């Protein structure tokens, strides 16, 4: 029954893709900073799972390594770095003020996901690879939804998670598009993502200390040509 095993592992990939997308929706729908962070960790875990599944079915060491790197960087390192640099009360905050309320945000996220599907449809149709057909649209949807939550959010930490979620989207597509990318590149990209968390974490801490808030809405001193 060895032959039946291969489609099973790959057959589970669309399911993981669904969970990646659902976690993106979760990030949009959550008000609590801590909750947004949890959904990001969940999304990263499903990302790694997808790499493991495809790596298993195609016996690719590369993808196994990619999954392991993802877990090390996004499930372990980034939450740890942020816990270390940021004061705990930042996590307990709730956002009251959002550009759009949650039901409309979810609706918009859904529309973005559908748009992503149609945007890449002509490219995906030409590809024989079933994994590309799943991962590329979902990855693009992840990028778009991440970008939306980055724009709509007001607190510093959810904005950072928005960037990281966009990165997750790109990676999810990358599993299918570039499964045999040299490991050194993958590793460099992962280190880069952790560095983003470090730098933004330090900046957020400084802003919290100096300005006393991490609401982007409070930062309006710099305008296009302030009047003298």
């Amino acid at each position: 029954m060895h032959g039946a095993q291969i489609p099973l592992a790959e057959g589970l990939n669309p399911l993981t893709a669904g969970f990646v997308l659902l976690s993106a929706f979760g990030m949009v729908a959550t008000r609590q900073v801590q909750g947004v962070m949890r959904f990001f960790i969940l999304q990263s875990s499903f990302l790694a799972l997808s790499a493991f599944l495809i790596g298993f079915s195609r016996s690719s060491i590369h993808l196994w390594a990619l999954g392991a790197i993802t877990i090390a960087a996004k499930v372990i390192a980034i939450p740890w770095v942020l816990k270390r640099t940021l004061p705990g009360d930042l996590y307990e905050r709730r956002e009251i003020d959002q550009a759009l309320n949650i039901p409309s945000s979810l609706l918009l996220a859904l529309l973005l996901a559908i748009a992503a599907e149609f945007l890449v449809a002509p490219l995906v149709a030409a590809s024989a690879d079933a994994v590309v057909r799943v991962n590329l649209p979902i990855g693009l949807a992840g990028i778009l939804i991440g970008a939306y939550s980055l724009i709509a959010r007001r607190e510093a930490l959810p904005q950072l998670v928005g960037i990281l979620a966009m990165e997750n989207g790109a990676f999810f597509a990358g599993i299918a598009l570039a499964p045999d990318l040299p490991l050194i590149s993958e590793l460099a990209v992962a280190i880069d993502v952790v560095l983003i968390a470090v730098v933004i974490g330090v900046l957020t801490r400084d802003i919290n200390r100096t300005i006393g808030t991490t609401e982007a809405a409070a930062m309006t001193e710099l305008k296009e040509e302030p009047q003298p």
Partner: protein
Amino acid sequence: MILIIAIFLPLIAAVLCWLKPLRSIAWGTTVFCLSTSFALAVVISGQVLVKGRVIGLARWFEVDGLGVLMILLVSFVCTLAAVFAGGYMRHSSQRERLWWFYCNYNLLAFALIIVPAFADPNLVWVGVELITLFAILLVGFESTPIALEAAWKYAILTLMGAPISLLGFFVLYWAYRGTGSGTAETWQSLQAMAPAMSPNLLKLSFLLVFVGFGTKIGFAPTHTWLPDAHSQAPTPICAVLSGIKTSVPLYAVLRLLSIILASPEARIGRWMVIIGLFSVGIAAFLLLQVRDYKRMFAYSTVEHMGIILTAAGFATQASASAAVAQMLNHSITKSLCFYTAGIVLLALGTRQIKDVRGLFRLSPFAGAALLLCALAIAGAPPFPIFLSEFSILSAGIRSGHNTAVAILAILIVVAFVAIMRQVNGMLFGEPELHTTAEAVPLSCRTAVLVAAVPVVVLGVFIPAPIHSLLQLAAQQLGGR
């Protein structure tokens, strides 16, 4: 081997600045390591002129004419900006953290210098992201609320581009693998395989990389971080950000553009011209109403990035070589502009254009420097920017882009008038608010004087090695 040393010296300098016993001599370490890097870059350019290509570590670190030109520019601007920082940063409110400033500065220089040396496009993405990251904390170095706000806006806008361009590079890899080529993906092999790659995938990949890196280069409408960051960052950082940090992602975009242009079906040049002209237009009109002279030079950077993109969009051999010359001239001139802005700020303590009056009488040195750099950056003859802008316009006419050339010429004139009008008020007239000017530190004067040399010389005389290096660099950008 020399290439590897030249690249990693700034990283070593960063580690040395971080070590506790060496923190007091961080400035000396920085200047020493970066100037050594520059000297090595000169040696490497000599080798590239002879052999056409220098390989540090095959498949990872390889430079051709364009790459070595960028390394030369990066190390030149970073060295002088470090010299300038010696006197300038002594007036900072964060004096006790200066070692940290130099440590971070060296990391930024390292990321800038490594990008043109990478042969693998995916690593170029990593390098460009590192540049962005290392610059964030330097922009907010003064730790005032307004500086932190500028750093935050810069961070969010430019980091948002990162995943988009990452997807672009994944698509590029996919397209490259689709050709069935067995060799590793490098700029060179991409160029060779470009005609065989799927034009649709190439276009998609270029679009994503262009949008993602465009936020870092400062193409309109994602240019808004530039003036904010440039008004708030310490001036030596502005010189690096404007002079070279915007050119390095542009270098990657131009490389990719040359690959697309090698694919016969992907017509993308016209869009580059339109987007380039849009940036030039936005910048030209914002220059008319700017009130802060550091912001003025920032808008001028948006203008020049637009001009270079327009030139690249003309897609001929002549326009490619004009675009490369414009990159060189912009880097050397714009860094001089910010050193000058720095000494004006040190001398008078204000960034407002209307508060600076009669600079010639208050400080003849600062006045003369400001006049020189304003004429040079606005594109007056006989300065190098005039020459390269002229060749861009003539290359455009020869390739039949008459409308685009007409619009570009008008916008360049608008920007010229805008800059000269602002600077005229600063230089002449009666001093109003100030009666005396503070003395300018020696290291700042030195940086201005040294930076002025190429700006004056290259306008009237281009030495033969620099000319052949520019030609070699332009060849890499291709064009018909």
